[in-house]
């Protein structure tokens, strides 16, 4: 009997153990989701779901109010490309803006970073001065620059007059042929800080002995930059280019604050024109179609960026 009892006593134990281990494993597998769920839930509801739903809405003709949505396929996109002149102005302005953003803030940021990475007395003060515009609200930047460009009282025209260049003065923001450029300059003033900061961070990773070795080999500062520093900044450069491109396509506030798309729609961007079509003209289908086009353009720059960010795992 004793021999029979023993296995009976032992048997249930391993069963209970296995069961306990399974629930514990289930729990451990479930736990990360518990940690993730608050962030994932609000992010999915506020960002991801609306994004998908926008793409769906772009296939309908809808005024945003009436319950009736009419499915029109790709008609909204066709209308934009063939019958909407302002769409083309906006697309062109986005292209100009993008090129300017890839050239100006990036090169200025790199130049300033190289300069301010030198250890001289007061370099921290200069860093603060050049970075400062980046912490301002873009809407505030727009307001400040609207005064700078004021035809009579603005700093720009007054400075030009004072330097004897009165011929160059003009009503910067009221001339449809050029109005987009002053806005881009204002945006650049705000956009230089970030690349500067990223390049400064990147420069800290360039090993000093490499530069010393190049110097001993007789390489001057320019050759040291081209052959040593810049190749080592390759990854930083890629990130800077991607971020500035993505930010350039996101531009909205500054145009709204400075020109509100005018004069004569000459400073519309896809982002501002989307707002007009959706909220002023109640053509929600076309508005969301513009949003989808804008997002697709962003993806061109964003996919390499996301690859870069996730690859390091």
């Amino acid at each position, binding site marked *: 009997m004793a021999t029979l009892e023993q296995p009976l006593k032992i048997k249930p134990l391993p069963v209970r153990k296995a069961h306990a281990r399974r629930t514990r494993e289930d729990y451990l597998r479930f736990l990360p989701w518990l940690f993730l769920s608050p962030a994932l839930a609000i992010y999915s509801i*506020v960002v991801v779901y609306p994004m998908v739903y926008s793409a769906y809405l772009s296939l309908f003709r809808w005024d945003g109010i009436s319950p009736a949505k009419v499915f029109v396929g790709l008609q909204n996109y066709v209308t934009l490309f063939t019958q909407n002149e302002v769409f083309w102005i906006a697309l062109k302005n986005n292209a100009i803006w993008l090129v300017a953003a890839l050239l100006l803030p990036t090169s200025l940021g790199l130049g300033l970073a190289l300069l301010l990475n030198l250890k001289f007395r007061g370099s921290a003060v200069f860093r603060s001065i050049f970075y*400062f515009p980046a912490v301002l*609200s873009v809407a505030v930047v727009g307001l400040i620059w609207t005064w700078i460009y004021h035809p009579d009282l*603005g700093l720009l025209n007054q400075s030009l007059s004072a330097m004897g260049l009165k011929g160059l003065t003009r009503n910067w923001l009221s001339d449809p042929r050029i109005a987009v450029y002053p806005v881009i300059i204002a945006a650049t003033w705000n956009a230089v800080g970030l690349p500067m*900061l990223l390049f400064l961070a990147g420069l800290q990773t360039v090993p000093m002995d490499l530069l010393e070795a190049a110097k001993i080999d007789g390489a001057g500062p320019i050759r040291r930059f081209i052959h040593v520093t810049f190749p080592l900044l390759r990854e930083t450069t890629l990130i800077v280019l991607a971020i500035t491109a993505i930010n350039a396509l996101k531009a909205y506030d500054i145009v*709204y604050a400075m020109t509100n798309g005018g004069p004569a729609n000459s400073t519309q961007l896809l982002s501002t024109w989307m707002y007009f079509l959706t909220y002023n003209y109640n053509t*929600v289908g076309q508005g969301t179609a513009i*949003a989808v086009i804008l997002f697709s353009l962003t*993806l061109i720059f964003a996919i390499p960026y996301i690859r870069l960010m996730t690859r390091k795992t």
Partner: protein
Amino acid sequence: MSQALEKNVYLPGKSAKVALFYAALALAAVIWFAPVITLVLTALKDAGDFAVNGAFSLPKSIRWSNFTEAWDTGVKNYFWNSVIVTGFKVPVGIILESLAAFALTHMRFKRADRVFTYILIGLIVPIQMTLVPLTLLMNALNLIDTLTGLTLLYIGFGVPFGVLVMRGFFRTIPTAIIEAARIDGASYLRIFFRIALPLALPAVVSLCILDGVATWNEFILAQIFLRSDELRTLPLGLVQFSTQFSTQYDQLAAAVLISVVPIVLVFLFFQRYFVSGMGGAVK
């Protein structure tokens, strides 16, 4: 390179070169800072002085009342609305983002990479892509024209950047520390609050500052989802202020300056965190 140039700059006999270097840099800095200087000068002078002498001249007499008048005309409301929204958004956001980032780095979790990629998409989505459905959603939830609704949106849109920064920092915490605590029987939640979060304090501070500044400055969501004047946040209120009082440059400049003061203070006191925060986002 910096050492080499440092030597150059301080070599005796090259003082002319040093002076030239500083002069050029100072000139560039003044041109770069001219818009801010103009703003400050405009805010300090009265409208008549501005109309006669323009923006870039020293004020004849300092007129502090510009600030009190701007404050009473509505900036007070905008300011406190911004304080409320930022004050709620930043701490709540950071807790959610850190919990998520911790799960992605220090818990055994097979799909971490995929979830992280899913979250990163949010960094690149143009806000326009979400506006129409968000309007419908906020309408259905009766959250249009409320600071609560706006704060919820800010928390949602803040998730990608916050997770990116916190994940970058959590990855530098050695797994051995977490494992040791596990073996000692600590739960993950306890490890998170007692070990990971305190170790990540520099990242938390960086994120607070970057996030605080971004929230303080946000414009487009506030523009779409706040309708009544008394609920406007600062950037939105200022743009509105500028269309209403387009000729009163002195008061407008004072209003803008008031909105900038908290940012300047944060910037001056926590400057180094801007660099480390951005560094965390990239690494």
